[in-house]
């Protein structure tokens, strides 16, 4: 007993209080763990703080503290007049703001630009909020109706005919081209060694041309009758409405199920008629503003929106072509995509500006802006094709096979089952492409179009505002605009991505 008691140890006094553990929560703890937890980290924190100190402080000082806020010309922004080292020269931006936004668009007509921008915003915003309904109608309005309306709003001018006249004109052009080609081959056959063969081919082509001529003859006759009448636009419009609605009715299933298609078609044409009447397109429309007068943010937005709207269908067509099993179509799509992806955009713009006019008939001049738009659409289309292809590859084979088992044709499988899923998958990638497209629109200033950057550069050469800080002020302003647009789009793409991957989040 005793030896146990003597060997046992019972503590009688309390152990001293240990110091509290190092705090790892709250602001202090956060600072300790994330900024000052080791000598290296302390050094890095000091380095980071120094970096921020030497970039943020001078920028804020330049943009706000040392800035000049009002004045009439450069005199206000000179150090000797202001009495301190002048930072940003904001009166210069105020004076140049109309030029930076509208370019040389006539002052009296600028309400049209504002209206087009408001329309775009009203149509685009509900499209971006996933919770709002009627995405199909909204998308249709934004991608098809809005570009046409915006064109007549911004460019002005009216129409002389409608669907029928345009179809007739196009077919006539096509027919002329075929007959011309046939005659060229016939001429060749007089001198060539393979004379009989060429003679046969030439006559065949001419025969096809003549046949087409007789086929389209009633159409052309009708067109001439309509153009001869007093109300050419409305007569043409009525005929087009009747024909298209009838076709929609028949294709929609005739008497059995075609009524819905008929109603939709008539409603669409009614809307078109209202637009034509509102804008007075049937008698000249708004005064024409040549695109050479457009400039600034307007051109930037026009080029990027047109690029977005036109590149997506091109991209989808090319992506489907690249996945097709038909050899020629696949080879063509691959070559087309790889070609445009392999060359820089600036050479594409040079191509569109200098080479494209050579490829078109001599009497056919294309506006400078439209040429750049064609180049950008082809270029961006190739990039979008690769994005869409990624989405198509992500759709399991079973989806297509299930659709085939239900008896759907290739077109229906693609447009109803595969494409909607594929496009939803790649929305973030598409938006990222749109960001780079938006940034790339600045390149049009190299081919003599005055977009935001081009207008900015032009405004630097104004002697009225040339001060040491003019260039920095201009770049700060344009940079903020570009940043807001691109950063907004990239945040939106992140938002969509997170929403799409909601099921994968843990």
């Amino acid at each position: 007993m005793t030896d146990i008691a003597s060997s046992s140890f019972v503590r009688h006094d309390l152990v001293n209080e240990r110091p509290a553990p190092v705090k790892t929560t709250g602001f202090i703890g956060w600072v300790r763990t994330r900024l000052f937890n080791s000598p290296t980290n302390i050094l890095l924190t000091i380095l980071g703080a120094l970096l921020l100190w030497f970039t943020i402080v001078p920028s804020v000082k330049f943009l706000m503290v040392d800035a000049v806020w009002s004045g009439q010309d450069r005199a206000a922004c000179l150090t000797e007049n202001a009495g301190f080292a002048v930072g940003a020269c904001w009166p210069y931006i105020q004076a140049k703001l109309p030029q930076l936004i509208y370019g040389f668009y006539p002052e009296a007509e600028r309400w049209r630009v504002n209206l087009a921008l408001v329309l775009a915003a009203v149509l685009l915003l509900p499209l971006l909020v996933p919770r709002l309904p009627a995405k199909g109608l909204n998308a249709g309005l934004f991608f098809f109706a809005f570009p046409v309306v915006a064109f007549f709003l911004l460019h002005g001018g009216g129409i002389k005919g409608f669907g029928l006249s345009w179809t007739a004109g196009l077919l006539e052009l096509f027919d002329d081209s075929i007959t011309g080609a046939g005659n060229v081959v016939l001429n060749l056959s007089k001198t060539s060694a393979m004379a009989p063969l060429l003679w046969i081919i030439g006559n065949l082509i001419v025969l096809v041309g003549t046949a087409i001529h007789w086929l389209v003859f009633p159409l052309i006759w009708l067109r001439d009758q309509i153009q001869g009448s007093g109300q050419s636009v409305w007569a043409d419009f009525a005929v087009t409405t009747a024909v298209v609605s009838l076709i929609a009715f028949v294709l929609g299933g005739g008497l059995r199920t075609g009524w819905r298609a008929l109603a939709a078609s008539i409603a669409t044409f009614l809307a078109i008629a209202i637009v034509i009447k509102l804008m007075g397109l049937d008698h000249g429309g708004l005064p024409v503003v040549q695109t050479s007068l457009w400039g600034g943010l307007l051109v930037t937005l026009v080029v990027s929106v047109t690029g977005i709207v036109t590149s997506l269908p091109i991209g989808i067509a090319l992506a489907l072509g690249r996945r097709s099993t038909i050899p020629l179509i696949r080879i063509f799509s691959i070559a087309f995509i790889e070609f445009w992806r392999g060359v820089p955009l600036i050479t594409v713009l040079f191509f569109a500006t200098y080479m494209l006019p050579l490829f078109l008939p001599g009497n056919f001049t294309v506006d400078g802006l439209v040429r750049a738009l064609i180049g950008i659409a082809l270029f961006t289309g190739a990039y979008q094709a690769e994005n869409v292809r990624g989405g198509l590859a992500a759709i399991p084979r079973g989806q297509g096979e299930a659709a085939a088992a239900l008896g759907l044709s290739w077109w229906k499988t693609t447009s109803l089952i595969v494409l909607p899923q594929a496009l939803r998958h790649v929305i973030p990638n598409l938006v990222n492409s749109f960001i780079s497209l938006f940034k790339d629109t600045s390149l049009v200033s190299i081919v003599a179009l005055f977009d935001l950057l081009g207008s900015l550069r032009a405004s630097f050469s104004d002697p009225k505002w040339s001060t040491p800080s003019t260039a920095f002020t201009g770049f700060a302003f344009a940079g903020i605009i570009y940043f807001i647009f691109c950063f907004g789009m990239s945040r939106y793409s992140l938002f969509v991505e997170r929403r799409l991957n909601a099921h994968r989040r843990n």
Partner: protein
Amino acid sequence: MSTEARKPPAQIALKIRRILGGKAGWNGVAVQFAFAAILGWIGYEIVSNARANLENQHIAAGFGFLRNNAGFDVNQTLISYTGSDTFLRVFVVGLLNTLVVSVVGIFFATVIGFIVALCRLSPNWLLSRVGEIYVEIIRNLPLLFQILFWYLAVLAALPNPRQSISVLGIAFISNRGLVIPRPIGESGFEPFLAMLALGIVVSLGLRFYARRALFERGQVIRIWPSVLALLFGLPLATMLVFGLPFTFELPQLKGFNFAGGSRIIPEFVALTVALSTYTAAFIAEIVRAGILSVHKGQMEAGSSLGLSRGATLRLIVVPQAMRVIVPPLTNQYLNLTKNSSLAVAIGYPDLVSVFAGTSLSQTGQAIEIIAMTMGVYLLISLVTSAVMSVYGWRVSRSLGA
């Protein structure tokens, strides 16, 4: 009576149909014919219109113009060039300028990109925020904007040569560009070069031998002292024997400009700075994604095997990250090369600027010149993608083995 298996029906017709028309069969063949007809028609229209238009403008098609005298000067040439040289030489001069700005830009973009990526991955909160701000700002501004910013705002704001900013008294920055010392070859230059090359070759051979020894016999050979001696000791010894390989000619301010030294034109500086900082932001994201793609468990497994942190990074993490990083990184290098064509905006004499710009406006040979320019970039990107597919094939093979 034995029943023999029936022969499968002849599939030759089916196979032909499949080859000619894909899954769509004869419909596919018909579609192809229609498509070919449309393509032929478009091609015919283009050729006939181009011929008529060229005739109207009195331009002779063909590449004969390449032998004509260019008659304009280029302000940065790597090979000798005067105004009386041919357009072909202009093409080569422009191409070399493009390649030079691309290579220099790629070097700096890689360095800056890796630094920014390390910043973003740093556990230090402030430093990772600094990296993030850099990436967000640079990525969301157009490249052309940045090039013009450096050229029109920053470089134009620099003082003139007389008040130029001196870097250690050997290089000078002014609004006329950057002046740096020029190396001049001396008598010891050739032996120095030869010894340097020998050192590099022998070091590579040593490394190869050491790896063979490690993999086949498990024998660890320490090679770094000998490599160090080969790479630095050998050239130094040569220098002692044969004298200095080259000396530097320092720039001197004379009158209103610098004499001596070599001048790097401001356009080159602006373009390189803009291209490398811009591409660096994308490279940083690629590197960061690559390193994050290696699972945390790999690092833990490495340390549980007793490897040091450095050895784990070098042997386990980096090789796996590289597999993710290299393909998009090459893509960024290619983008940088293509983006160098924006030089035309500030007048740096690259391929697009001197050939598709000046030469085109002088000769009017739009089709030939633009085709040649596009062809160069297309060739570069096709070669790169071919190399990358070989790399991808090797990686997938090494993964499979």
